[in-house]
């Protein structure tokens, strides 16, 4: 904390305030825990390249002494052992690193010199090494400066299950790994969560919906040993499972209902979204799920299927994944500039979604940190560069699905694509993938510019992941899918398993779910990640099985109570000695409100809906062209669809979603932020959807023959998913009584309150009572606990 005390005097000298210092102190404490076990304040006995050194070298040195040959300084690279041990090019008597010999290691001399002209990293880079980092490097060189390959690029093998302190705690293999980590870090697991809270958590995690009143009752009464597993099985069978699983996939696939640039016209990709839900519900293996999306069209050809073959249609539809990127309709754009942009988007999305690599960083030059060369970027680009498409196909509303596309007719929906929720008679066009008959040559684009053509490359993937053997795989998207699913591919299974884990625990085992490269975080539980990855792959890439393993683990079932010990030892909950307490994603906030009031329309799929939205948002931003220039709200049942069906116009995304950190679907996104802002409070207090839900539930309960206390208890239980405590009920009841008295004195206020929303009002003469109950329910909706799981 020496740094901190000097910072303090600096701050005070500069008349900055104590408050900042205090705040920084809290943060500094948290920083040290940030890298999990990687950076304890003391230097470990054995310094490991992957865990201790590479993160430092990568972050501070590789930009100039790494894989990018064009920007390499002094012709020195420190990312490979051979280069770091070799004689320096500009002074062959010296070596950057001499294992075990500090005094002859130029690296050591340059990071510790007092001469600012010599110091590394250079002063002008704005990068510095901390004393702790220098101490780590010192010890590493002394211990022989051993390099190791990057963990993520070595194929996972099944690790041995670790010894644990308490054999009785683990319920499955997951728990052995987490408990071993807790043991290492002096933590012990929380108790199992109480049944009510556990049920709420697992129901929301699997279906995205709160448990019904009936399910709550049933589960509480079921005293059998496997009561929880029975509920899990039931939830996994729910058709809402597919919706919940689809949600993060739609973020990765940047799914939206408009084209995204400037005029931002309508597109009709929703049948593809319906397919994703269907695929999860049918529990397609991840191998099939991925292959169809990447190469369904090529699979149809390879299997010699006819276009009207049922499987062929479904395979074609799945390829919509790669057409969800934004498309311009701005008159006057240069066609090729935008066509290249679309291929770029596909390439970047592929890298992030399937490989968790920041491919986009190698578009204009070799990657600065990972061994992805610019040539590698365009070799991957070549797979996606064969679509017979245009940068600018037509003006707005000329077409909702630029070619290549497929037509889905009413007959298709009746006979084949039964999961597509098309209710009107018009056929719907969906953009899909196709390759040109003659291959389009792919050039390296100098500095990433569409019109600066460099060398021609062919479709390929880098050797450091897994050599792409053209004898083994066709050089097209189908080959790409096969290469990904090769048991020797080190990334595919790990990346997906890690993202599924994130859905349940709020953070991935690798926290940077979109970056498994050198700059990504190290896994908090590397062996667990490998165990899960291998287990997943060798069990048919079975997604439901994976989900079940996770939710049945003792780790998942813990209570989320946070103790002082947790806060001091593991504030970020890296070691999972408690269940995470997390706010629901935007869509689920809406779902919970609608479901608990009984308003929810559980229909699955179909065209997206336009629900209540503050006036004028689309109109004030439009170019004035296209049918989306004005917002035409839907009515009736459509108003009560789940959050994932709320219409996403990319240039003006739905505010109730954005305020709760939903993706704007501009680009592939694999991790949302989770903020806590006053705008969220305003939304929960004033949004017509919440108010209407409160009103409808109040009316329903008022019509029931029960006491006021019973009504309040029931509302509480439906919304919070647990029984209220007596002291909670006291506060709520007191509030209800006061509201009722106040509203009885001002019945016109009651009438106004009850006027919200389009759902028909129940005929109840005692309006102040209903209105008071509505206010009470609104308050309950605003409890912090409600939208947390």
């Amino acid at each position, binding site marked *: 904390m020496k740094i901190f005390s000097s910072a303090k005097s600096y701050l005070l000298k500069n008349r900055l*305030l104590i408050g900042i210092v205090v705040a*920084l102190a809290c943060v500094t404490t948290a920083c040290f825990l940030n890298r999990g076990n990687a950076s304890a304040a003391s230097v470990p006995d054995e310094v490991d390249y992957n865990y201790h050194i590479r993160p430092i070298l990568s972050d501070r040195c590789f930009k100039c002494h790494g894989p990018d040959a064009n920007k390499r300084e002094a012709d020195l690279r420190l990312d490979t052992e051979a280069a770091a041990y070799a004689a320096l090019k500009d002074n062959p008597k010296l070596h950057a690193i001499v294992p075990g010999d500090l005094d002859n290691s130029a690296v050591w001399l340059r990071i510790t010199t007092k001469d600012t002209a010599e110091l590394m990293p250079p002063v002008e880079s704005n990068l510095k090494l901390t004393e702790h980092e220098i101490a780590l490097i010192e010890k590493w060189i002394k211990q022989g400066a051993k390099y190791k390959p990057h963990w993520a690029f070595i194929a996972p093998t099944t690790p041995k299950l670790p010894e644990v302190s308490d054999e009785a705690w683990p319920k499955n293999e997951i728990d052995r790994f987490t408990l071993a980590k807790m043991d290492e870090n002096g933590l012990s697991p929380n108790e199992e969560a109480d049944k009510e809270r556990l049920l709420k958590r697992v129901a929301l995690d699997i279906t995205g919906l709160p448990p019904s009143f009936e399910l709550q009752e049933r589960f509480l009464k079921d005293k059998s040993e496997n009561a929880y597993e029975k509920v899990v099985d039931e939830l996994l069978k729910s058709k809402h499972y597919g919706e919940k699983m689809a949600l993060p996939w739609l973020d990765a696939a940047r799914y939206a209902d408009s084209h995204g640039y400037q*005029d931002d016209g309508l597109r009709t990709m929703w049948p593809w979204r319906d397919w994703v839900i269907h695929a999860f519900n049918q529990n397609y293996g991840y191998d099939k799920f991925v292959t169809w999306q990447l190469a369904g069209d090529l699979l149809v050809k390879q299997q010699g299927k006819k276009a009207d073959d049922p499987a062929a249609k479904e395979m074609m539809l799945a390829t919509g994944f790669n057409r969800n990127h934004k498309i311009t309709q701005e008159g006057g754009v*240069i066609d090729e500039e935008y066509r290249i942009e679309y291929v770029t988007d596909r390439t970047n999305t592929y890298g992030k979604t399937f490989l968790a690599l920041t491919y986009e960083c190698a578009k204009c030059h070799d990657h*600065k940190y990972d061994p992805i060369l610019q040539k590698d970027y365009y070799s991957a680009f070549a797979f996606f560069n064969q679509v017979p498409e245009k940068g600018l196909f037509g003006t707005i509303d000329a077409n909702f699905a630029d070619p290549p596309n497929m037509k889905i007719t009413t007959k298709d929906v009746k006979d084949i694509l039964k999961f597509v929720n098309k209710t009107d008679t018009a056929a719907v066009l969906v953009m899909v993938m196709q390759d040109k008959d003659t291959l389009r040559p792919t050039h390296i684009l100098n500095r990433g510019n569409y019109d600066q053509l460099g060398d021609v490359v062919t479709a390929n993937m880098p050797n450091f992941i897994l050599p792409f053997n053209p004898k083994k795989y066709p050089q097209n998207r189908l080959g790409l899918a096969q290469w990904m699913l090769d048991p020797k591919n080190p990334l595919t299974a790990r990346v997906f398993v890690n993202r599924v884990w994130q859905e349940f625990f709020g953070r991935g085992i690798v926290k940077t779910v979109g970056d498994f490269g050198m700059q990504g975080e190290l896994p908090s539980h590397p062996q667990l990640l490998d165990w899960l990855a291998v287990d997943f792959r060798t069990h048919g890439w079975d997604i439901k099985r994976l989900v079940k393993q996770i939710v049945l683990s003792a780790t998942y079932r813990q209570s989320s109570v946070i103790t002082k010990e947790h806060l001091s030892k593991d504030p970020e909950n890296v070691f999972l000695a408690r269940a995470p307490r997390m706010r629901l994603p935007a869509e689920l906030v809406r779902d919970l409100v609608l479901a608990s009031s009984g308003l929810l329309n559980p229909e699955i799929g179909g065209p997206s809906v336009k629900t209540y939205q503050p006036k004028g948002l689309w109109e004030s931003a439009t170019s004035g062209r296209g049918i989306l220039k004005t917002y035409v709200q839907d009515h009736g049942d459509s108003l009560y669809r789940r959050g994932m069906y709320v219409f996403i116009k990319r240039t003006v995304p739905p505010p109730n979603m954005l305020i709760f950190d939903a993706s704007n679907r501009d*680009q592939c996104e694999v991790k949302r932020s989770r903020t806590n802002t006053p705008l969220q409070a305003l939304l929960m207090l004033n949004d017509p959807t919440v108010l209407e839900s409160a009103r409808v539930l109040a009316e329903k309960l008022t019509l029931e023959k029960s006491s006021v206390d019973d009504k309040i208890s029931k509302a509480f239980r439906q919304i919070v998913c647990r029984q209220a405590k007596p002291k909670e009920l006291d506060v709520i009841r007191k509030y209800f009584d006061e509201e009722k008295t106040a509203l009885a004195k001002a019945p016109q206020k009651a009438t106004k309150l009850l006027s*919200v929303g389009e759902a028909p009002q129940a005929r109840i003469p005692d309006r102040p009572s209903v209105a008071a109950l509505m206010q009470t329910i609104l308050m309950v909706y605003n409890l912090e606990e409600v939208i947390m799981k």
Partner: protein
Amino acid sequence: MKNEFLENRLNINRRHFLGKMTAGIGSVALGSLLVPDLFKGSGDDSDALPLGIPHFAPKAKRVIYLFQNGAPSQYESFEYKPMLNKMAGEELPASIRMGQRLTGMTANQAKFPLVGSHFKFAQYGQSGMWMSELFPNIANIADDLCMIKTMNTEAINHDPALTFMQTGAQQGNRPSMGAWASYGLGSENKNLPAFSVLLSRGKGNGQGVYSKLWTNGFLDSTHQGVVFSSGEEPILYLNDPAGTDRSARRKMLDNLSELNNMAYDDFGDPEIKAKVQQYEMAYRMQTAVPELTDLSKEPDHIIKMYGPECLVPGTFAANCLLARKLSEAGVRFVQLYHQGWDQHGNMVGEMPLQAKDTDRASAALITDLKQRGLLDETLVIWGGEFGRTNYSQGTATKDNYGRDHHPRAYCTFMAGGGVKPGTVYGETDDFGYNIVRDPVHINDFHATVMHLMGLNHEKLTYKHLGRRYRLTDVAGKVIPGLIA
């Protein structure tokens, strides 16, 4: 050395602190919507302090960016090129065009006939700045302006050009300037967002705006620009529902926090305490924001200055007045977008309308700030996303013509906030087509604006997907010639 070290620590800490706010423990929304009380010592009520620690003393504490969306023609506003009138109808010399790429709208045009301004120019102020007759009020404050003639960009279409101007990159979901300012400096006012956005529409050909122009990108979503709308509800979901008044709301919140505190006793999660604070802040915003956005109580001389249109909600004039009030109240970055500047045709008909909508209020805003002693610490920026061609799109007739997009040179002016007043910076050739002296690329412009705000554009970074991102990406240099 020691200072550098400390400076670096502070920078890292600040970055960490801001970066960690959501995941952090007991974190509250910061940046755009923060609670500065946490950072202020009690009893200090001197000038509101920024959350972030500037890298050095800022000249501009706040920015008001009057974005002219669609690209106003420089030739009918601030770029006097009599050569174009002399050579009207003649072909643009290839030696001038030098292979400049063209948009799809004029790429197939057989001829590129030069066309001069239909409107008269004269010199104004001590500085003798040339101004077109369409902007008499701005002309009157010429000596307050720092006029850049040599802004330039690589984009030739609206969407990428606007995105470049606002986020430093043509493509990609990168944070907007205002979001960077919010991230770097935080808010000055506990009841208002640090980054506020106001939209208006003129009478000319328009191109729309997109929420990605005020996006937080990969920064925390608390740094997202908050749109103030002109309707009855200045911020989305701000108004209490019909039938609820302030005291009823207060009562609900009091009970709510009692219940939430019970939950805290159960769970011990500091997020619960943070949530209670957010509800309190929301409550305060509900009072503070409508008071601020109510323009009806402005004195007569102010209404006169901005023009009667300023009382019509949603006009550029109303937004200028609102911008002054927001800025005065401590909003770090107020971004206006005024649409309608895309004159591919009918320059003669539309340009005067667009100018009329903006001239008076723009000048009034600068004068108003000056009279309040705020101009020194408030940077006002006025300009679009690229320039327009010196040749006519379509045929130029005696009475009318149009101009296509031109990325190589265009005008933007700034005032206050530490810029050099009464200055013309940079020079283009006699055709206004190419820059002959002192170019200001968008990256340079961003670097300079950040510098004025006390931020080193190379040091204000955010690590995302393994890379440290900046508003200026990998380029940009501060332009000393713009700074007083």
